[in-house]
């Protein structure tokens, strides 16, 4: 309990106006340590509950921490902290005059995300979702070029998504009279037959799918992420979709029971096929892009397909794979977006043409990028391989070979994608745009980014390998503990 108290105090402490980087970093470090502490506490002592306002759960709002969300909390805090440290300079470059506002929004975004993960109240989740979205809109909207337009589309989609979720919660409230997740879960089994429950489920899921950019409704994501400022992209891209997937897991498993979600609904199969479509389309569209960040954004669309598909397979391996992939994908996306941010910091552009010869100029950033890329492709020592392994074994267990094929296909396409970039960056010689003549000695047009941007990136890249090495432990000790026992 005291740990959670410290944690909540940290959240509340950020809410005020922070005008400097140091305070932001301090706050996030505090959050990281307390969430790590929380994770170890939860693992040894079992789930904890914190009653806000001192009211008992169905009447007041409670935070409910179990191994699953403690794990995600650690991920969020770590991603936010690393990205904060790594992008200090590019923030200073891009928003020289509004640093205060930027960090305030940044922290509020993280508060929203942490809150979504830890809350045990369905309506509270909506409010926190909106905090995260509104700050996210603002952060993305400050980007260059087409960013405002892309953000407005994001607002439309995001608002419809959130409204659908709210409507779903409203239906649940209408039929159960409760807003607390555990309480709803206790009441629901008696009334599963009702059409209202069915629609509540559909609305919640539809809303969350929109927010996580699942395939048919992914339209807002690529432009929004591609044009976002790099510091914001490095924060929002790893977190938003992943946290939404987490919310889906939470609603589907802990509010509705697994029997209902997987057996009674009968939508698992079509959703896995939709995930297959997401993976295939995401990969193909990524292949068609000529801009690094946009390509990465389409890769995210495919990754969302992995997680949703793995979850809806409905067996233990698949769900473990999906949850493990939430963690891994957050780390991988962080690495590639931070590396892309570093490139952008020096190159002022991210079309493939501008990447020629970057390996010689920025070897360290590119090395980290390659580690991230290998992980997304799914090469063994990195963590991407292991979550993919779980997903594939889950799919085989469920007899869903379409999903297996989609996963393999996407790995293949990712390999093509990233090797293309590596080829451009490594083998094609760097040339000036207007060919000054080849007898001149090659000029170093730009240098590697400063240490303060490199170290967090390297830490993040190292974490990919660490996560890979320890993923077995992670699954058996944390994730299996977190899933309800009925899932076989």
């Amino acid at each position, binding site marked *: 309990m005291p740990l959670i108290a410290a944690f909540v105090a940290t959240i509340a402490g950020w809410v005020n106006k922070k005008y400097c980087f140091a305070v932001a970093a301090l706050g996030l470090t505090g959050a990281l340590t307390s969430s790590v502490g929380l994770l170890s506490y939860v693992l040894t002592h079992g789930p904890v509950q914190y009653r806000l306002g001192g009211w008992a759960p169905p009447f007041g709002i409670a935070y409910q921490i179990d191994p699953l969300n403690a794990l995600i909390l650690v991920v969020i805090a770590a991603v936010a902290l690393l990205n904060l440290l790594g992008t200090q300079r590019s923030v200073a470059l891009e928003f020289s005059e509004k640093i205060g506002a930027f960090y305030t929004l940044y922290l509020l975004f993280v508060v929203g995300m942490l809150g979504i993960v830890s809350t045990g109240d369905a*309506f509270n989740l909506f409010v926190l979702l909106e905090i995260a979205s*509104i700050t996210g809109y603002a952060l993305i*909207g400050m980007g260059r070029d087409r960013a*405002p337009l892309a*953000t*407005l589309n994001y*607002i439309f989609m995001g608002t419809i998504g959130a409204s659908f979720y709210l*409507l779903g919660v409203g239906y649940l409230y209408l039929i159960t009279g409760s807003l607390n997740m555990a309480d709803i879960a206790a009441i629901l089994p008696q009334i599963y037959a009702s059409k209202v429950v069915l629609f509540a489920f559909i609305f919640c899921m539809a809303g969350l799918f929109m927010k996580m950019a699942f395939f048919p409704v992914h339209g807002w994501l690529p432009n929004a992420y591609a044009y976002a400022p790099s510091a914001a992209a490095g924060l929002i891209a790893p977190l938003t979709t992943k946290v939404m997937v987490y919310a889906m897991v939470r609603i589907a498993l802990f509010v509705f029971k697994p029997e209902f979600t997987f057996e009674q609904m009968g939508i698992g199969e079509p959703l896995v096929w939709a995930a297959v479509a997401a993976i295939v389309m995401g990969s193909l569209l990524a292949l068609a892009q000529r801009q690094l960040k946009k390509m990465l954004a389409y890769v995210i669309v495919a990754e969302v397909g992995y997680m949703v598909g793995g979850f809806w397979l409905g067996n233990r391996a698949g769900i473990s794979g999906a949850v493990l992939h939430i963690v891994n994908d957050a780390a991988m996306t962080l690495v590639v977006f931070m590396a892309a941010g570093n490139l952008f910091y020096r190159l002022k552009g991210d079309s493939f043409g501008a990447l020629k010869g970057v390996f010689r100029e920025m070897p360290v950033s590119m090395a980290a990028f390659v580690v991230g890329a290998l992980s997304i492709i799914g090469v063994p020592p990195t963590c991407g391989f292991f979550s993919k392994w779980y997903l594939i074994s889950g799919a085989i267990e469920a007899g869903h070979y379409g999903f297996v094929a989609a996963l393999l296909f996407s790995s293949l396409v990712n390999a093509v994608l990233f090797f293309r970039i590596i080829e451009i960056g490594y083998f094609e010689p760097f040339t000036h745009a207007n060919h000054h003549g080849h007898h001149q000695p090659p000029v170093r047009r730009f240098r590697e980014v400063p240490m303060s941007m490199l170290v967090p990136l390297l830490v993040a890249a190292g974490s990919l390998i660490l996560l890979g090495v320890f993923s077995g432990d992670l699954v058996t000790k944390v994730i299996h503990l977190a899933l309800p026992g009925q899932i076989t």
Partner: protein
Amino acid sequence: MDGLFDFIVSKYNYWGYVVLMMIGMYAMIVKKNLVKKIIGMNIFQTAIILFYVSIGAKRDATLPIIAHGHGDAHHAVHAVDYMNPLPHVLMLTAIVVAVATLGVALALTIKIYKQYNTLEEDEINARLRGR
């Protein structure tokens, strides 16, 4: 006939919210002007507010403010006499969220207008393709 009438009377508020919601959705899908889309978004959110508030309604009940609150502590309070306060609370929150979203959306619209000098979506798209 009587049964049908009862059915309509007991459900028409929900139909009202559905209609309102669909008007908002239609505006968001079909309209080309960004401000009209934002208005559609607002109608959409308002529909949900209407839905919640109608959950809170209770026949023969009064406002959720307890009469002679402080006077007599032993005055028994019956739940049947008062409307359900919870949906109202939730909607207060949702209204505020809607206002906040609206503010951010309008700020972005101004930014877009500065950039393209128009708010018609097709004109913006034409300009983007033209470049």
